[in-house]
């Protein structure tokens, strides 16, 4: 039994090089809750004569995009259609990569907003790293479909921000499905959600438990990661002991002394600390809900103390105050265009935040929604942020701003090599817009995910994709 587990473990280590994977697979033969998503077969599609924003910073006028086998196969002028290809004339229309939202609670805080569907915050322990957002997802949330109509092809579903460490996130393809596993992006890493500031201290302080202050927040993070380090060392010791046992057993085989050798006992698994070990090992991107510049700086120091990397600050209404530092550290800012002032830590929000965070070299600014309404109009949010930047004298053409809702969020999710731009070999995720997408009047005409047409404004589904909306009076697809 043990050696079998070790064999499994070694295989998994070679795949993901990870103690996290090792720990998980020591007890389980395969990754639990695996993705069952498969893109449907679809014919090659050639989109012609479009204005193409590639997501890499380029704008191509009168260009063609070829999708085949679920992938982007070519982006250039004057492509010829392969046999059997569907050809779409996009003259006057714009093509962008599929939009990516790194901050959504759809499915875990689904509409209709009811107690029954309020599953975003565990809210019973400030360190709830053991929970996985995917286990709360209700795939019938009608908001997935309205987001698709807004061009969203990939999204990260996060736990809420009540807890210091709210649990694991999951990355979904925005396709209708009966199970979340059938939406789950294959081979994507989990993220972990953390929150600083008012929310955790307010939620737990009002229950007369720690944390009730910002210093209590930071103490809570430090204690959690100290425990994770101890847990990590226990497993590393176990692995060393196991290796020694295996080697000794091998060398003594046939000499009749195996009976004296005892295999080491593995440490008891701890779901909470497994997630945090993934962070310490640099394998789990960290997404931090944080508003104030000074608190973001404290979180950067926390990450240095425990030698992990923060993928992105989310909300970050004061990110503009530390834009250069974020860029130097390679930390993304997932921001709103103009939300501000709903609480004191959001009081210093400005409409140039995204543009200023975008300004330094190696920056990684993006728009995020945190809202089933705003996610439908992420292009408009980018347009507002772009306009404010331009008004402030920054040079931000559309081909740069589109990165804020495509390639930069892909980077924050660790998916840069797979989606977020229209480059040969990337996933066939793209949107055909009826006009310049940086307009309030723009609408997504066609949305492709992995080369398959998932939304067609001219030919709407006759029935809503959500079972919840099916058969409700007046509930036809959105215009």
């Amino acid at each position: 039994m043990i050696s079998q587990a070790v064999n499994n473990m070694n295989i998994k280590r070679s795949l993901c090089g990870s103690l996290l994977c090792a720990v998980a697979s020591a007890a389980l033969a395969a990754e639990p809750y695996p993705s069952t998503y498969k893109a449907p077969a679809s014919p090659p599609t050639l989109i012609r004569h479009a204005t193409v924003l590639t997501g890499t910073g380029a704008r191509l006028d009168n260009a063609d995009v070829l999708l085949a086998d679920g992938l982007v196969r070519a982006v250039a002028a004057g492509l010829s259609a392969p046999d059997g290809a569907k050809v779409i004339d996009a003259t006057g229309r714009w093509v962008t990569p599929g939009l990516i939202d790194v901050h959504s609670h759809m499915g875990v805080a689904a509409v209709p907003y009811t107690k029954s569907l309020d599953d975003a915050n565990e809210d019973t322990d400030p360190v709830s790293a053991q929970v996985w957002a995917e286990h709360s997802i209700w795939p019938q949330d009608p908001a997935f479909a309205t987001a698709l109509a807004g061009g969203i092809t990939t999204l990260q579903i996060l736990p809420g921000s009540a807890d210091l460490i709210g649990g694991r996130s999951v990355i979904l393809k925005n396709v209708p499905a009966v199970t979340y596993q059938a939406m789950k992006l294959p081979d994507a890493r989990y993220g972990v959600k953390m929150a600083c500031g008012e929310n955790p201290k307010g939620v737990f302080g009002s229950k007369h438990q720690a944390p009730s202050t910002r210093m209590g927040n930071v103490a809570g993070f430090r204690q959690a990661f100290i425990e994770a380090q101890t847990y990590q060392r226990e497993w590393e010791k176990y692995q060393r002991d196991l290796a020694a046992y295996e080697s000794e057993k091998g060398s003594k085989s046939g000499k009749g002394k195996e009976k004296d050798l005892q295999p080491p006992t593995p440490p008891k698994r701890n779901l909470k600390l497994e997630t945090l070990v993934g962070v310490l090992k640099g394998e789990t991107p960290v997404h931090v809900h944080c508003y104030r510049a000074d608190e973001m700086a404290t979180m950067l120091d926390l990450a240095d103390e425990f030698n992990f990397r923060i993928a992105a600050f989310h909300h970050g209404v004061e990110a503009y105050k530390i834009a250069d530092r974020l860029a130097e550290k390679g930390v993304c800012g997932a921001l709103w265009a103009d939300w501000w002032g709903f609480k004191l830590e959001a009081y210093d929000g400005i409409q140039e935040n995204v543009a200023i965070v975008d300004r330094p070299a190696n920056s990684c600014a993006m728009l995020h929604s945190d809202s089933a309404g705003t996610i439908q109009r992420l292009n408009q949010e980018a347009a507002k942020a772009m306009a404010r930047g331009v008004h402030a004298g920054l040079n931000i053409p559309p081909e740069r701003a589109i990165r804020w809702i495509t390639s930069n969020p892909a980077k924050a999710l660790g998916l840069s090599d797979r989606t977020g731009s229209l480059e040969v070999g990337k996933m066939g995720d793209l949107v055909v817009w009826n006009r310049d997408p940086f307009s309030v009047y723009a609408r997504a005409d066609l949305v492709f995910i992995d080369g398959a047409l998932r939304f067609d404004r001219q030919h709407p589904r006759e029935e809503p994709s959500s079972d919840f909306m099916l058969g409700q009076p007046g509930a036809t697809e959105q215009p």
Partner: protein
Amino acid sequence: MKTTRWFAFLAAAFLVSESSIASELLIRGAKVYTLTSPNPMERTDVLVRNRMIVAVGKNLTAAAGAPIMDAANHPLTPGLWGGLSEVGVIEIPREGDTADASQGADSPPWHQQWRPEFDVTLAYNPRSSVVPITRIEGVTWTVLDPSSGDSIVGGQGAAVTLDGTYDAVLRGSRSLFVQLGGGIRKISNGSRAGQYMLLDQAIREARASGTSAEGALLHPAGREALLRYLDGGRVVFAVERAADILQLIAFVQRAGIKPVIAGGSEAWVVAKELARADIPVILDPLQNLPSGFDQLASRLDNAARLHQAGVRIAFSGGYPRGIRQPAGNAVAAGLPWNVALASITSTPAEIFGLGADRGRIAPGQIADLVLWDGDPLEVTTIAKQVWIAGQPVTMRSRQTVLRDRYLPRANPN
């Protein structure tokens, strides 16, 4: 527009306003959206004198020394309304000490007394940072709405001008705010049917003479306040579900109330009935999700369908300063562009009894004006200059000074 000309203009404007000369202003050659006709007037002048618009036309001249603004055919609209809001009565929603928008309800709901005499405008603070943050985006007025509290009757609200003065409440706009439907079931003892029962009881109390009975809903001041609204006063009902809207139509006809609907997610379902009863609807054109069971039939084309049926509509939703974005989206969902602009200017002014003074660019109107750098409903458009009652607004807010502190420097921290 050249920056130098721009500063010269502002300097002139301030000089004039600081002196005691009757203030006059000429905006020359704007693309004027008058809201008196569907099409804009190209390269048209607007002459302002003593707070009012006095002329709209070609080749107007101003008194010697009056500031002249060359608009270069940029769009000029009336000052926008910011919807039903809490501007100046809430500084920060989650900081209780700065939030004065509604009455709390400490007593058990069923024993609650109704306080229609509550007047949220008494809490208005023109020095709130939200006021300049809102007005530099072209939003010059809003209606303060007390209905977000825990009572069926929220109390009274009114329109305010965002000119930063203390005397900001606009005469004739006072309204009573009532909420109905599933969201407040708990204060109607388990059934929304009880809401009509309680409203009937309150109306009987208001109409009765003599002292209040034991267990009355209303204090004497409340009886007086409610009675004013039963004699043709304006009552804004927050209600979403189609069935509830139909009940409301029946109720107001019994009670002699002049209603306005706020919310109305499912209003399109009963558009004909609303048109027949001439009841205007204040809605959020972005509301398309089944956010609650009262809103299952929410649609992006709610505004377009209501308009087509002949219902007057105005927009409210999100940040007041951002009201143009929902309006632009309503156009994308099928509403005629000029109706969308009217839904954030002239129509709300009419709904709140201010149509004679506000919401249009015409002689006799208060000179609340906005000059834009592009299509006023477009998200990439920014207000170049805002005037309230003929005075140029300093285009500065707590947010622009924060921007100006951090924009110029590479900031290592």
